[in-house]
């Protein structure tokens, strides 16, 4: 059987090392495999590598590869492919998206075709999680040499790409050589249906078996349909109101805190996403996250906010502009409007400026905003997730515009610590501090939705949003 699937946004490219768009990753995860993977509870599990181990000093990481792993051409996946892939990622010319996560790799050894050893310049625990990302997928060394990565998609994943008609459709067929095989369906046909109402209509008329949904307004209609099932799972990405602490008056800690106290996060969630999601602190990884009620001002307190404003010398409030991207996420405009109305109560007058995504990104990267509504991606490891913003050397430090020695040192300690329990403590402190100094106002995490016909069995939704389990999905009668 063929699984008919639909999504609203199509992949934007086929080079697993370069693509960062959500939809690209979802497609590429079906085609390519990384060394390891994270499961539904965000535990690291085998993929191409069957086992892995850090050396005592934490400066060497050894993988054993699955002897059954084969590329879609039939060639086995060897340690040479792994080495070539990582060298490609590290090569600046590649412009690999995840390069920053692998800068601690000093050298790569391939003692035999089934063994790879990464020598690290410093202890780097999060690197393992980073390797679970499809941005660290293993691609054939031969293809790298031929320069065909990104044109012909050849990976070791459960499906191979037969046809891609950008912004229209993809046709995938089962990879007979897949080490994890056999797959439950013969292939997947993905249609791009840009309008989610149309996706719902197609589900209702049973034209499609499985769909990705983005807009909670549409997703909540699915359960009303007897033959349809909605899968939802909290995700790692988080909705956030980014303040720009380099701009007056957000330079003032008290002003930022006042904003944090003035916002009713649950109400933002209830309104913009119809309550579909969970209020969150900075850490969205379930195993790491602190109960939000423990965090600074997570219970709305307008009086306190007003007091803080007064202390900061802004008793009469101030005006600022908040930017957001149209449709990215679909709830952005709604969030902005609720926040606007909430902040109005402490005298903050917000102007909303919705922008086309690229225009927004351009302004965002330049740090050219007072406040920004954003949906930032999450990672299975807090360090990977936040070092870009809150370490002094972070690549996006200019966007966060906030330098804090405490945060920086907490990040460095958490990076080097290999004991999971100790790491958890370090990051709990980090989270608490971050919420208190409030450079950003974390709001909530939403759900990732997939909708399916009830006869589709075996799909396991995960917080990373991966569709990898489609490899094992079957279609009943």
């Amino acid at each position, binding site marked *: 059987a063929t699984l008919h699937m*639909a999504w609203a946004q199509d992949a934007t490219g086929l080079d697993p090392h370069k693509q960062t768009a959500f939809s690209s990753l979802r497609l590429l995860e079906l085609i390519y495999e990384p060394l390891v993977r994270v499961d539904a509870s965000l535990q690291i599990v085998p993929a191409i590598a069957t086992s892995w181990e850090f050396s005592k000093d934490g400066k060497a990481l050894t993988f054993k590869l699955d002897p059954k792993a084969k590329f879609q051409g039939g060639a086995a996946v060897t340690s040479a492919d792994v080495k070539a892939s990582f060298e490609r990622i590290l090569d600046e010319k590649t412009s690999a998206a995840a390069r920053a996560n692998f800068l601690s790799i000093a050298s790569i050894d391939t003692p035999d075709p089934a063994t790879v050893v990464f020598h690290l310049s410093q202890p780097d625990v999060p690197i393992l999680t980073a390797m679970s990302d499809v941005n660290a997928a293993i691609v054939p060394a031969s293809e790298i040499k031929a320069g065909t990565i990104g044109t012909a998609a050849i990976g070791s994943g459960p499906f191979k790409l037969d046809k891609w008609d950008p912004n229209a459709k993809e046709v995938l067929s089962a990879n007979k050589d897949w080490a994890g095989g056999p797959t439950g369906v013969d292939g997947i046909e993905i249609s791009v249906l840009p*309008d989610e109402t*149309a996706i719902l209509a197609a589900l209702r008329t049973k034209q499609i078996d499985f769909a990705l949904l983005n807009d909670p307004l549409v997703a909540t209609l699915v359960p009303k349909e007897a033959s349809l099932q909605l899968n939802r799972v909290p995700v790692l990405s988080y909705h956030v109101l980014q303040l720009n602490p380099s701009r007056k008056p957000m330079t003032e800690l008290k002003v930022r805190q006042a904003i944090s106290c003035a916002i009713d996060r649950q109400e933002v969630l209830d309104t913009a996403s119809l309550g579909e999601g969970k209020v969150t602190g900075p850490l969205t990884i379930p195993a790491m996250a602190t109960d939000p009620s423990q965090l600074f001002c997570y219970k709305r307190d307008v009086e306190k906010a007003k007091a803080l404003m007064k202390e900061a010398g802004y008793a009469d409030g101030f005006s600022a502009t908040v930017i957001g991207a149209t449709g990215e996420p679909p709830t952005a405009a709604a969030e902005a409007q609720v926040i606007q109305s909430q902040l109005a109560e402490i005298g903050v007058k917000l102007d909303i400026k919705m922008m086309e*995504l690229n225009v927004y990104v351009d302004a965002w990267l330049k740090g050219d905003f007072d406040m920004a509504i954003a949906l930032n991606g999450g990672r299975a490891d807090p360090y990977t997730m936040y070092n870009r913003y809150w370490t002094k050397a972070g690549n996006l430090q200019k966007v966060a515009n906030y330098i804090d020695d405490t945060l920086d040192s907490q990040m460095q300690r958490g990076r080097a610590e290999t004991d999971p329990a100790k790491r958890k403590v370090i990051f709990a402190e980090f989270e608490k501090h971050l919420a208190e100094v409030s450079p950003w106002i974390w709001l909530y995490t939403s759900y990732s939705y997939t909708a399916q016909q009830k006869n589709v069995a075996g799909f396991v939704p995960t917080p990373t949003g991966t569709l990898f389990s489609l490899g094992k999905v079957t279609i009943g009668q």
Partner: protein
Amino acid sequence: MNYLMRRLSTFPLVLLGVSIVVFVAIRMVPGDSITAMLGTEAGLLTPAQRDSLAAYFGIDQPWFIQYGRWLLGILHGNLGISVTYGRPVLDVILERFPLTLELALLSMIIALAVGVPAGVFAATHNEKPSDLVVRVVAMIGQSTPNFVLALLIIYALSAGFGVLPAMGQFAPLWQDPLRNLSQLILPAITLGFAFAASVTRISRSAMLDVLSDDYVRTARSKGASARSVIWRHALPNALIPVVTLSGIEFGYLLGGAVIVEQIYALPGLGRMVLDAILQRDYALVQGSVLFIAFNFMIVNLLVDLAYVALDPRIRLGER
């Protein structure tokens, strides 16, 4: 002949104008191919990575050099390579164009098949209740945003009747005509409704003018039947404004119908252009706008030629 040559000779100039406008305009929009591909992750790139990507996207040179190169390519029949599709721009456009053309033709056929008779009917029943009904329906048609109509159609069919032509996986006409028509009929109706409404209004008023002309009286004095008077004698004289309107609308439709293509998930030119803009696929945007402009000029030319065919009094090239 003379006229045709003269008109065709203005094409390159207009296209040059279009090319400059589109080239400058798309570059004036903040964001570039890199932010389009990487989003906020683009901030993670090192300068060297950024340069190599810029070189990959062909946006590393000053704009006038880029423009010059592009223009040179066009002279050699090469509109450039689309970075999203990894294929020559012209190939991508030509792949999408048949659908757009088909959709435009279908909607126009619907519009003319419904609008002209409705307009004629209203004109011949001027100021009677039936005329009023036609006029009100036409005004409703004109005032319904097509996304509302599209959503209503889809909702009514899928939730009400549980049927819907295949969404997505578009089948070209020559591969599977039945499936193709089933996929295009709803979008064509959606577009055709408002189009038909304008045609109705225009043909009604044109017919009203024509019906009082002397030659209609002559036709009647010959003993021509009411039907023949209306359809053979009056209508051909009322077609000029209808052709003008249809020409403009058809020209616009050939540029793609973004919203309808989006809702009905049709891989047409409109969505392609929109996506190309959003993805900052410069070559594709430039190429497709040129292509669309070219189509528009061809349609304008055809409209002018249609005037001549419809009305022997019109002589072209006389200003």
